[in-house]
């Protein structure tokens, strides 16, 4: 009977695979159709290049080995790797095994239910024994991951997670199906082995146990295989509607990303891929300052995406999307590298659609200063409230003999980013246009800004043809080129990475180099991409002062722990945040540098 190549029990599996295949192709095709012009152009430009090679490597590293998760926690990485890579190997090795056993070809399900259809259960193809044992080892590997996953459900701390995601009903059902697959497989193979003595060491061992228990029975065997097939079929059918779709989507997302596709301010097909690529692992929850300091756990990346995915937008997206500091901590933590802040901003833009009517038309053009051969300096609105920073920058410019134009000294136009982050796309656009006009007409050779918010805006949202630098980059350049000579004082400092400068623009080393040149820089526990938001970020308009203060205090405690003389930062906003707390000596890097110039 078993030597036939078909049995009714394979139907749920085959139906599941067929459904999954058709549905996924249809879904992906629809999403790809919804890519915007720029994204299509990128794909067209890069599709015939070698970029698929790094994409394959990244898909292998992240989709199967789960490298980024492993870096967070070894055990958590092992859990994901054993399930993903283990299952992948089971499929690949199973296919090879089937190919060897049926050199003339075979239907798809033979590889999956190999032990059932194995010809005459005897060693009649090369290395059959080896493959049987290898498949058992792989199954143990997967089962060990499954065991960890179950353990994590009860106690997640050893796997490096304080909080885990609250999943939807669909996700929970799909997970149940997934968890059933491997134990059922083991049981089915053991049941067959109890009758025919085939399989590897573990299968045979368990088969003997079943025989000794007296359940070596073809009916029992059949029901096991049927359950296994149903578990597989159910899982495949639920996949497109559950978080497990990320398994396939992530591969596509990685490829598109390698082709240079980026998310825009509107929801596109690419966004759909991102939404689907979120594995809902919940790693974004633990690091989020809203959770850590305020105990708010409904607005983190995973839940925000969930609300977008479920079209719950109309109902409750507002508190979820608005109640976020946009500090990008989740972006740094996300193992899938999703650009959560951009997606959140899309929701905000959508929410503000009716009130974002522009309104800066009244702004008159400020006469640009003819700045040929000069650098333009943009202090930013916040630097007007921290005049110590802009003053120090002027000192530094004068010390190196750099001619400059302090473009917002008297009349200030905001860079537009605070508005954009709130979702006021049109208003931000008007401000950007005014500033761009002014900068282009001035013919300045370079733009230097003291505010990381402006910096990120000029760098990413403006299309300026001149170099844009944050003052820490600029000072670092001056030091490296030997133009600026600094003395080292005996101050011990800790450095606070501003969110917009560090995670936002990847500027981590330049400020540290500058500080090392003038002071003794101490390490803090949470720094660089793991730095803590100062809480006074412009990203969250809904927090009250008490909540902001709680977040600020956590960042302060982290910075004060190594007992520095001074806290150094590179953002007027962060500086103000720490300044408001009492007894914290806080200085901007520009101020420390200006104090230590050797003339």
């Amino acid at each position, binding site marked *: 009977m078993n030597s036939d190549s078909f049995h009714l029990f394979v139907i749920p599996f085959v139906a599941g695979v067929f459904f999954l295949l058709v549905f996924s192709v249809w879904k992906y095709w629809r999403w790809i159709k919804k890519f915007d012009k720029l994204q299509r152009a990128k794909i067209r430009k890069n599709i015939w290049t070698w970029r698929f090679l790094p994409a394959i490597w990244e898909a292998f590293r992240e989709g199967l080995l789960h490298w980024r998760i492993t870096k967070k926690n070894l055990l958590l990485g092992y859990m994901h790797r054993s399930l993903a890579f283990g299952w992948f190997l089971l499929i690949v090795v199973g296919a090879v095994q089937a190919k060897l056993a049926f050199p003339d070809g075979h239907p798809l399900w033979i590889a999956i239910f190999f032990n059932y259809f194995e010809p005459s259960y005897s060693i009649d193809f090369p290395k059959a024994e080896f493959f049987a044992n290898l498949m058992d080892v792989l199954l143990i590997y997967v089962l060990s991951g499954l065991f960890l996953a179950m353990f994590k459900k009860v106690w997640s701390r050893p796997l490096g997670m304080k909080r885990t995601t609250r999943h939807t009903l669909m996700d929970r059902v799909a997970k149940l199906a997934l968890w059933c697959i491997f134990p059922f497989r083991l049981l089915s193979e053991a049941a067959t082995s109890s009758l025919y003595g085939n399989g590897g060491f573990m299968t045979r061992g368990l088969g003997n146990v079943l025989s000794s228990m007296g359940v070596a029975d073809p009916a029992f065997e059949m029901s096991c295989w049927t359950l296994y097939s149903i578990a597989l079929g159910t899982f495949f059918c639920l996949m497109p509607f559950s978080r497990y779709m990320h398994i396939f989507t992530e591969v596509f997302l990685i490829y598109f990303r390698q082709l240079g596709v980026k998310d825009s301010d509107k929801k596109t097909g690419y966004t759909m891929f991102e939404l689907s690529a979120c594995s809902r692992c919940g790693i974004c929850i633990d690091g989020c300052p809203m959770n850590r300091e305020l105990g708010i756990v409904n607005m983190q990346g995973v839940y925000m995406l969930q609300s977008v995915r479920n079209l719950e937008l109309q109902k409750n997206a507002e508190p979820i999307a608005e109640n976020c500091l946009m500090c990008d901590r989740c972006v740094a933590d996300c193992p899938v590298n999703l650009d959560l802040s951009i997606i959140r901003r899309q929701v905000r833009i959508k929410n503000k659609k009716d009130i974002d009517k522009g309104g800066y038309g009244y702004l008159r053009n400020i006469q640009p200063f003819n700045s040929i051969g000069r650098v333009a300096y943009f202090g930013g609105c916040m630097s007007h*409230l*921290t*005049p*110590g920073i802009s003053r120090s920058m002027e000192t530094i410019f004068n010390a190196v003999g750099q001619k400059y134009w302090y473009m917002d000294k008297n009349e200030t136009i905001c860079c537009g980013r605070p508005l954009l982050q709130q979702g006021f796309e049109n208003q931000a656009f008007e401000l950007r246009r005014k500033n761009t006009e002014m900068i282009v007409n001035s013919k300045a050779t370079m733009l230097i800004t003291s505010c990381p918010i402006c910096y990120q805006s000029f760098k990413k949202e403006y299309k300026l043809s001149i170099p844009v630098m944050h003052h820490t980059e600029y000072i670092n350049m001056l030091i490296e080129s030997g133009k600026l000579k600094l003395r080292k004082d005996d101050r011990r400092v800790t450095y606070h990475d501003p969110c917009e400068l560090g995670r936002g623009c990847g500027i981590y080393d330049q400020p540290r180099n500058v500080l090392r040149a003038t002071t003794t820089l101490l390490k803090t526990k949470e720094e660089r991409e793991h730095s803590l938001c100062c809480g006074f970020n412009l990203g969250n308009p809904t927090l009250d002062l008490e909540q902001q203060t709680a977040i600020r205090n956590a960042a302060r405690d982290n910075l004060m722990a190594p007992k520095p003389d001074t806290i150094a930062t590179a953002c007027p906003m962060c500086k103000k945040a720490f*300044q408001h707390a*009492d007894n914290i000596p806080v200085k901007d890097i520009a101020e420390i540098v200006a104090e230590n110039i050797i003339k």
Partner: protein
Amino acid sequence: MKSVSIIGAGPAGIEAAYVLAKQGVAVSLFEKSSSPLKNIADKAFLFPNFAAATDIVEQMNRKLLNANIAQHLDTDIVGIVREGEQGWKLSDSHGNSYYSDAVLLATGYTPFDAHRKEELGYGIYGGVITSLEMEKMIRYNQIVNSLGEKPKRVVFLQCVGSRDEKTGNHYCSKVCCVTAVKQAIEMKKQLPDTEAYIFYMDLRMWGQHFEELYRQSQQEYGVRYVRGRISEASGTFDGRVQIKAEDTLMGLPLKMTTDLLVLMVGMEASEGTRCLAKAAGICGEYGFAQSSDPHLGDCLTSQKGLYVCGTCKRPMSINDVVNDARAAAFAILEG
């Protein structure tokens, strides 16, 4: 009560020490600086009657001499613990210990550090000064701008570091309103041609003669009042200060250039108050010391034998401080 230690030789500490010593109590008075009455030493005149601060200082010093008070100057008390059933043990920064039956905390306040409001430009622009520096200028008849010239205009800004959510000080410092009125009048007396503006949120003329002083400042001296906070100050090329504010009565934004911007800094708990209130377990809001009852036990604390008076509890004017010190002295005598 046989022996009392009083920490802080300001108006509060001295007044209480005087009263207790006159009643035959052995009083030790501790002061961390080298002379008593540091905080009012540089004051010019005191509201509401323009009494010369030097007179008050002199009278208080006389009290110190005329009573049997053991003075410990240059003694920074850093530790306070209950010793045995009744007594207290104080320790200073050099490790010396002092024992007494009761302790009176009179550790006072410290002026708000105006550097923390960087947008107002203190320490950055020469024309921005604090009310303490203005008081000194008035006292020595030397009101000058950053270039050392006679100012044409002086702007006073109320509530710097008080009633300010952002700095964490929600409370009113109580004395700054009338101090600005007083300083504006004194400035006008010395420089009648100089314009005086006072930017305020609301003027709290709570004491006797304060309201009259406020009226007088407008009618006789031409001091002008603008309701609104100053949001930022910036330097001009000629060493003056440009301020941006909103006139909330007119509902209009306002820019003004001035020679001097005087920041009326509020009172915060002094380092000694913070440290000792915490060590003794009587820490209240904002680092001030907490009395046990605002009505009937304002000089008592939750700790037996530990008393509090003056600005270590909350911002107070000098006349209130002196009365409070006498109340504390009698509370100690009652046991």
